[in-house]
């Protein structure tokens, strides 16, 4: 390691490589609760530097963990086997807009919100909007194939990337895709790299597709007496011919938690479930479309609907959703944020499962998420200093995934598998499916240089929150 450090320092001598304990500690965590000390931190600022670093790591046989802002909730950038953290947060300023092509080319460290702002300044929009967009990097978004509330209408990160520059495990630079919307030349390597969680290649440049920015938005809030009806409402709205940009759902525990600290006019905590619906488009169309939604939902028993009359009211309604994460930590200091997707029709059934697990394990378990696309976030709030509570949470998490898979769902809608969900991989895929993925990894990264310890479970690995010793 010492030698690698010396070699790296020759090229990156301006404080962008470090083995100081304070630095190593500072990159030993992400937004999950995992903790692994790396041995070296490197902050590259060009493709050439990345190539150089990768080649040196090969020479000294040291693993590499790409990292954006460390907002991963699945332990994605953690240095589980020690080695070098390749931190892209400093390379955050290369942005080129090709206005007439509706494209943007960015360096991996660019913050997602900056992409939104730059696109908007051209009257355009970059649709993917993870709730972490103020902090997450585009590299991290691409590697995790990030989602967010707007996915319902616009799709996820992978739907807006047309080209990538990638440094491979042996230090080659390859280009996948290009700068056209349509491109079917050869294998779709772009889509393979997107969502590969830093295990197949290191993204050093991305060409993103932009779309015209919708002129206006309109928001409605629907409160329900029971889950089943709220679940039905989602399908009913989507079948009415209207495609909202967002449909978000929250259970009563979330709503309670928010309202207990931030009372909001006209919203009561007595409903079992709450939906927020946002439409975007031309103002005239929005009026008409909102009417259709109103009529569609009028026939649903026990449904109360509030339509925001202006931007201010809309943002008040959205406040409820925005405050969920901070509000629920009043139940305890440790938050285990899970992420799973189920078919839309199964949302009510999933909510019932959650209620059952909540009671069986006596935990503060709440659920909210992107109902429109079935992507839900069960959250368990506990205190990680209490091992007994952690044990119960551990079992609850396993049950949540079992329930989701049973309902035709998947392990992750947007946060990735990373470190924490790999023990469940065999629950979703069979041997052949897993082998196919492992073959890809083996072919592209035979020495397991890139982000080792992620996605693929070790033999007989099981999910643990606390170790027994």
């Amino acid at each position, binding site marked *: 390691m010492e030698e690698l450090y010396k070699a790296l320092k020759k090229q990156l001598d301006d404080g962008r490589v470090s083995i100081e304990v*304070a630095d190593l500690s*500072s990159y030993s965590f992400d937004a999950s609760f995992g903790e692994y000390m790396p041995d070296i931190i490197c902050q590259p600022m060009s493709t050439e530097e990345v190539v150089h670093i990768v080649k040196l790591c090969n020479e000294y046989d040291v693993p590499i963990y790409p990292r954006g802002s*460390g907002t991963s909730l699945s332990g994605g950038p953690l240095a589980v086997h020690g080695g070098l953290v390749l931190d892209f947060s400093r390379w955050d300023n290369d942005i080129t807009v090709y206005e007439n092509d509706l494209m943007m080319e960015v360096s991996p460290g660019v913050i997602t919100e900056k992409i939104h702002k730059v696109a908007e300044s051209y009257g355009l929009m970059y649709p993917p909007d993870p709730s972490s967009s103020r902090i997450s990097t585009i590299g991290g978004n691409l590697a995790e194939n990030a989602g967010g509330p707007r996915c319902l209408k616009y799709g996820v990160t992978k739907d807006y990337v047309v080209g990538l520059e990638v440094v491979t495990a042996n230090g080659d630079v390859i280009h996948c895709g290009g700068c056209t919307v349509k491109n079917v030349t050869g294998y779709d390597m772009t889509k393979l790299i997107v969502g590969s969680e830093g295990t197949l290649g290191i993204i050093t440049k991305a060409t993103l597709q932009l779309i015209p920015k919708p002129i206006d938005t309109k928001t409605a809030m629907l409160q329900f007496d029971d889950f089943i009806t709220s679940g039905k409402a989602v399908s009913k709205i989507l079948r009415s011919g209207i495609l909202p940009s967002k449909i978000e759902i929250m259970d009563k525990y979330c709503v309670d938690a928010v309202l207990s600290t931030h009372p909001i006019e006209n919203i009561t905590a007595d409903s079992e479930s709450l939906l927020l619906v946002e439409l975007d488009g031309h103002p005239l169309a929005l009026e008409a479309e909102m009417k259709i939604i109103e009529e569609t939902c009028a026939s649903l028993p026990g449904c109360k609907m509030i339509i925001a009359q202006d931007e201010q009211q809309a943002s008040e309604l959205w406040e409820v959703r925005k405050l969920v994460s*901070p509000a629920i930590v009043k139940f305890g*200091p440790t938050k285990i944020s899970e992420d799973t997707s189920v078919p839309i029709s199964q949302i009510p059934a999933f909510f019932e499962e959650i209620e059952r697990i909540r009671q069986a394990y006596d935990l503060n378990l709440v659920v909210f998420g992107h109902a429109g696309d079935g992507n839900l976030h069960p959250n368990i709030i506990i205190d990680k200093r209490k091992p007994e509570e952690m044990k119960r949470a551990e079992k609850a998490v396993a049950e949540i995934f079992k329930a989701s898979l049973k309902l035709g769902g998947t392990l992750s809608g947007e946060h990735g598998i990373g470190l924490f969900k790999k023990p469940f991989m065999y629950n979703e895929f069979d041997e052949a499916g897993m082998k196919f993925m492992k073959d890809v990894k083996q072919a592209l990264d035979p020495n397991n240089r890139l982000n080792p310890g992620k996605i693929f479970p070790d033999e007989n690995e099981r999910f643990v929150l606390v170790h027994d010793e």
Partner: protein
Amino acid sequence: MTSNLIDKLDYDATFDCVQCGFCLPSCPTYLTMKEEKHSPRGRINLVKYAVEGKVTLKDLEEAIDLCLGCRQCETVCPTDVKYGDIYESAVEVLREKRNKKLDTRIMSLFLERNYMLDIMYQGLKLYHTPLISTVINKTKALDVLPERLGNMAAILPPVKKEKTQTQNPFRTKKITVGFFRGCMMDAFFSNINDLAIKILQAHDIQVVEIKQQTCCGALQHHAGEMEKSKKLAKLNIEALEKYDVDYYVNAIGGCGASLIEYDHLLRDDESWKARAEKFVGKVRDISVILDNINLNLDIPINIKATYQPSCHLQNVQHVFNEPEKIIQRIKGLDYKVLPEKDICCGSAGIYNIVNYDASMDILDRKMSHVKEVEPQLIITSNPGCHLQMLLGVKKEGLEENIKVKHIVEVVAEACGIR
């Protein structure tokens, strides 16, 4: 060796951090240094690791020393992490570890004793006498000072000290306020205090000047000299309690923040807790008072202006909108929002002297935003920021184009008060 020292770190508060990173873009040192250890999330984690024995106190030093203590990170944190407490505990522990009085030693000597203040004031007056300052400049006397002090000295405003008479034993008017002058403020900007008092009086507010007041204790506090700041807090509470006033008003973002946290500072002192809480309930920034009265803003000020909030006014006193609301009421004034206005300017007590380079990087970023706005006036609400902005304007060679004024000065001008 350091085990009991480590116990003083606020370990419990670190557990509220869910490491989401929402605070990163609001942290000036993270924005300029782009290293996790110089972010709030990184600092909190280092404190936690120090308690857990994963890093030493030595490893903590750089990260904590370079924190401005601006507490902007607190206002954006979704889980309400008490960063101030964590930071404060780390500063105190590090001070004890180094076991030496910090650079603030001389400073506190000044601040604690009024006669010292007078000496400082005399010195400044001398410096700003045209003859003396020419001599100093000609002989390059300032060059013997380190660059940082030289730069600071060069931007200090001329000192004027003519105190307004404010004591009036008869309560004839609607509200009565006790005025807290603050020591640095009064040394460098006594005219602002005077103007503030005049504005209040001109709007039917009775102002009582509290003779026994002393330094607020902010600088000592930031240096981890807790005992000293507690002593000063008690002196001030005692002094102000003697007067039957509705509010304790000040025009200094930083000192006001210190006053408003006396209850927190004295929380473990049973005999003082209740008194401190009562005291804190009366502390108000001048802008809060001015926003609530019908100011006679009759004189237009036709100028393009921007506003740099004081971190402590916002993040500790939670005064966010009042100054801007007042500014927007001034006739003719073309108000433009400063991009990243909520980010600290890098002044932070004596940070800009102790951590000169880091402070200047932050200031450069600030000035790049100022240049985007191209204002003719930068409005401030705290002497530290005021001096820093003056320094920024000077560094950029914009003295001809951009003035820096305290919000009180601007309001006074618009009210025709001199």
